[in-house]
């Protein structure tokens, strides 16, 4: 019962995150969507670890890894945004295509 509620919440978070990541024109808002999807993943991991896996330590480790992925995604993502903005004065997702030249 508890696990079902948690997993439904996680599914909704992933859905909202996917919507945000696909629909936002701005790079930073797109990253919000990604974070939200990872948030859903985190929620699901916590639920599984606690209610279905009997507290395997690997479950906690996985949650930490998800958080590390978020941190890395943010650091590299924002650094990329700064680099793009410096070149193009824009933070739109479209402008990254023109950066490749």
């Amino acid at each position, binding site marked *: 019962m508890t696990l079902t509620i948690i997993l439904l919440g996680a599914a*909704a978070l992933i859905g909202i995150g996917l919507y945000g990541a696909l*629909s*936002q024109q701005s790079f*930073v808002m797109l990253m919000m969507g990604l974070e939200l999807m990872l948030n859903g993943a985190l929620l699901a991991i916590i*639920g599984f670890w*606690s209610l*279905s896996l009997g507290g395997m330590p690997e479950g906690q480790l996985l949650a930490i890894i998800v958080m590390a992925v978020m941190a890395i995604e943010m650091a590299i993502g924002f650094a990329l945004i700064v*680099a793009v903005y410096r070149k193009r004065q824009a933070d739109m997702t479209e402008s990254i295509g023109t950066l490749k030249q």
Partner: protein
Amino acid sequence: MTDLLVTLLAAFTVWTGWRVFRVDSMVRASFSLMLSFIAVGGIGVLLSAPYIGVATVFMMAVEMMVMAIFMVMFMMNPAGLNPMSMVHQHRFSIGAGVVAALGLGAAVLLSSPPSNPVLSDADVVAELGHELLGPSMLIFETAGVTLLATMVGAVILSSRQGRFGNADEGSRPPGLSPDGEPAGRKPDNGGEGHHHHGGHG
């Protein structure tokens, strides 16, 4: 009781997650996302994962603070003084989001994961510590290397002054006195860069 609290927190995390894309102010969007993470952390605390739960709040408070800084830095109209909407392929995105949520939700309802709750007297923090230093030692050290690569990558990408001097010459600030050295950042950086703390000539 626990079920009720978990339901409330799950509803809260979904609602604040939705608010992220509905509010105009970037600061509110960032901290709405932070509230979403806090609710997830709260669920963790409820489900006898005290360390992971609290640490989620701890890490995400910091990360969303940084998120807010960058959101305000690079978004037009960061405070949402004018109402705005910066979306593309809107219908498709809504469809994708709904399909993903419904699909995952259906999978959840149809499957029946084994019920094997964590023992209430288990010292989960110590277990994690032994795991980190024992079987998962390699993961732990790999994470260190990955984080190092992240730091170096972030510095290279975002910092303008490269290894061989500034990427930008020609925008040197004026001197502190008419014929003095330039104010602001000096182009000659490198090993002793930290000596000009405020960076003034």
